[in-house]
């Protein structure tokens, strides 16, 4: 069989096409802005200024980005193994339970730097276990992992409502959430980091140490995927289950391990909003961040660097979107949800739509750059 698409230079493949897809997504989003009677260009300016104009904005942008890095990495790790983990939302939500247990029982005993590692482990463990069941069902019973992870999102939501309302909520309290964490379970802020760059004093942004953890995880995921034996096996299975079988890689093992890593990363995303911001575990604290991970992973082409950049972009949208809704009351933060959908549509489902046109363009500009290497050989 010949390759379905002729080869483009790498920069076009990894840079130009994603950018074109992204641009189209934003153009369509601009049309929505137009539809509600606002000027999309002015909206863009407000958005960017809101996100990066002041230290406060940057801190918030990075705070949001932190969560998205975790969820994006989670989706990407599964993608590399050919699996679609739509269950990040539920895995993160359940991880909140692990965090609650650790924080509520230890926050009066341990300082944050001792409690944080335990909380990370608990979050990762709970997320991993919640991903393990769909993984096992896929590997052993052949149930479609997409469907089971969706179902597990809802099951997780039910469990968490039950736990928060009926079990964990302090007696007499109204809100379905844990009591507030004490100092031991409150992560230190990183706002000083931004102030170092000459920005004015940041008053109250929740930008915290888990951002560093997210970057470390991004690096570890890079290490895992491209530098470890396990990552090598995951990629082999992801590209060609047949080649994996040939190479003696166990299908069951690789699916279970990959999904547990993916679930652990989703679990860690719960650290940022709970210990970093609200200082409790509340109803719906994940609020869709698990799904943002899908957009982030698709946009970042499942590479940690791309994911960090895409996360910052989405962090910008969340923060700038908040500012935007002050200036343009018609555009609430739900605009981001549209953009998220459009990014998933154009960078994911329609990722090849513009490829033929771009290839034709390249072919007409410089025929040599579009090598038809290996096309049809051995067919």
């Amino acid at each position, binding site marked *: *069989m010949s390759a379905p698409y002729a080869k483009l230079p790498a920069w076009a493949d990894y840079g130009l096409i994603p950018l074109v897809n992204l641009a189209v997504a934003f153009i369509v989003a601009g049309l*929505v802005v137009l*539809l*509600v*009677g606002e000027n999309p260009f002015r909206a863009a300016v407000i958005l960017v200024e809101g996100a990066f104009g002041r230290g406060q904005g940057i801190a918030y942008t990075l705070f949001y980005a932190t969560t998205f890095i975790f969820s994006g990495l989670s989706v990407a790790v599964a993608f590399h193994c050919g699996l*679609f983990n*739509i269950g990040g939302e539920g895995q993160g939500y359940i991880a909140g339970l692990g965090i609650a247990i650790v924080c509520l029982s230890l926050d009066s005993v341990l300082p944050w730097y001792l409690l944080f590692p335990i909380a990370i482990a608990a979050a990762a463990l709970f997320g991993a276990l919640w991903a393990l069941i769909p993984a096992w*069902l896929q590997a052993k*019973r*052949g*149930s*479609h992992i*997409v*469907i*089971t992870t*969706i*179902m*597990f999102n*809802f*099951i997780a939501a*039910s*469990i968490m*409502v*039950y736990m928060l309302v*009926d079990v964990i909520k302090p007696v007499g309290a109204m809100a379905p959430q844990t009591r507030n964490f004490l100092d031991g379970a409150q992560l230190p802020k990183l706002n000083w980091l931004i102030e170092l760059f000459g920005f004015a004093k940041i008053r109250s942004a929740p930008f915290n140490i888990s951002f560093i953890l997210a970057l470390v995880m991004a690096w570890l995921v890079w290490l895992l995927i491209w530098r470890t034996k396990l990552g090598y096996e995951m990629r082999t299975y992801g590209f060609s289950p047949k080649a994996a079988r040939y190479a003696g890689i166990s299908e069951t093992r690789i699916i279970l391990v990959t999904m547990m890593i993916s679930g652990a990363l989703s679990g860690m995303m719960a650290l940022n909003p709970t210990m970093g911001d609200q200082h409790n575990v509340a109803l719906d604290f994940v609020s869709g961040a698990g*799904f943002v991970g*899908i*957009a982030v992973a*698709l946009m970042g082409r499942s590479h940690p660097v791309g994911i960090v950049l895409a996360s910052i972009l989405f962090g910008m949208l969340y923060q700038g979107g908040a500012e935007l809704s002050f200036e343009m*009351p*018609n*555009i*609430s933060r*739900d*605009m*981001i*949800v*549209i*953009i*998220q*959908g*459009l990014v*998933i*549509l154009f960078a*994911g*489902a*329609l*990722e*090849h*739509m513009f490829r033929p046109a771009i290839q034709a363009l390249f072919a007409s500009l410089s025929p040599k750059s579009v090598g038809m290497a290996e096309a049809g050989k051995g*067919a």
Partner: protein
Amino acid sequence: MDFFNVAVQTLDSTIRLSVPLLLACLAGLYSERSGIFDIGLEGKMLAGAFASAAAASVFHSAWIGLGMGILISVALALVHGFASITHRGNQIVSGVAINFVAAGSTIILGQAWFQQGGRTPALAPGERFEAIVFPGADAIRDVPIIGPIYSELISGHSLLVYIAFLAVPFTWWVLFRTRFGLRLRAVGENPAAVDTAGISVEWLRYRAVICTGILTGIAGAYLAMVQNAGFVKDMTAGKGFIALAALIFAKWKPVNAMFACLLFGFLDAIAIRLQGSPLPVIGKVPVQFMQALPYVLTVVLLAGFIGKAIPPRAGGVPYVKER
């Protein structure tokens, strides 16, 4: 007779709660039977709900509302078709995208157009589909047993409820008694067989997703114009996914789909009725348990522990002419 009245009331709300599930479930049936997976039922239903409520309140007509709901829902279905049929994109990714676009744009447009925090204006009686009272329903209301059953359960629902339940035999008939149905089932199992028989796989699948759009549009209209008097943000609240679960639970068969949706609707009705009050034998059952039950049952079914749900064989795989 207290128990009897409670039973009738519970069944009545079971019917009301299962209608949107049923419509969405049948919607998914058309698409998935043709080999196009659709996890975007939720989004299409939401968009349909918004469009119908918005149009109904602006044009003061329930029918225009219904039409607009269907139109918008079909438009989104065509986007899914464009991505997954024409461009052979990933059907899961495309479905996820549509859910987000619908979730976001209903709120943004609602706020921009009506300025009520994402709601549409409350619909006046003439702008909704009213309950249809069957002849004699009032007359025999007080007859024991038959009275409540006839006047509460059978009579007194909106047109869309009857449409939903009539859609079940209709879908069965379409699927198993018409040429379109034969081809639809064939293309979801073996598109190459359809192609070599001289039938266009793409056009067939497009027609299937259009059917899906029509039904999710009606489902949305029901939510916004019958169950509620207007659109509230995120009013589908996962019903599209329960419908998907019901579809799997029903093994992609229309009559099974009705029973699956009634079951899931019943669980919902019970959960609402109990609200934490204890059951006779089991004791207190958390509401959340009842709410999670459809999903748990689906997972158990998918795992093959109770029967085996075998999806249409060509489902999720874009059709490429083989060399």
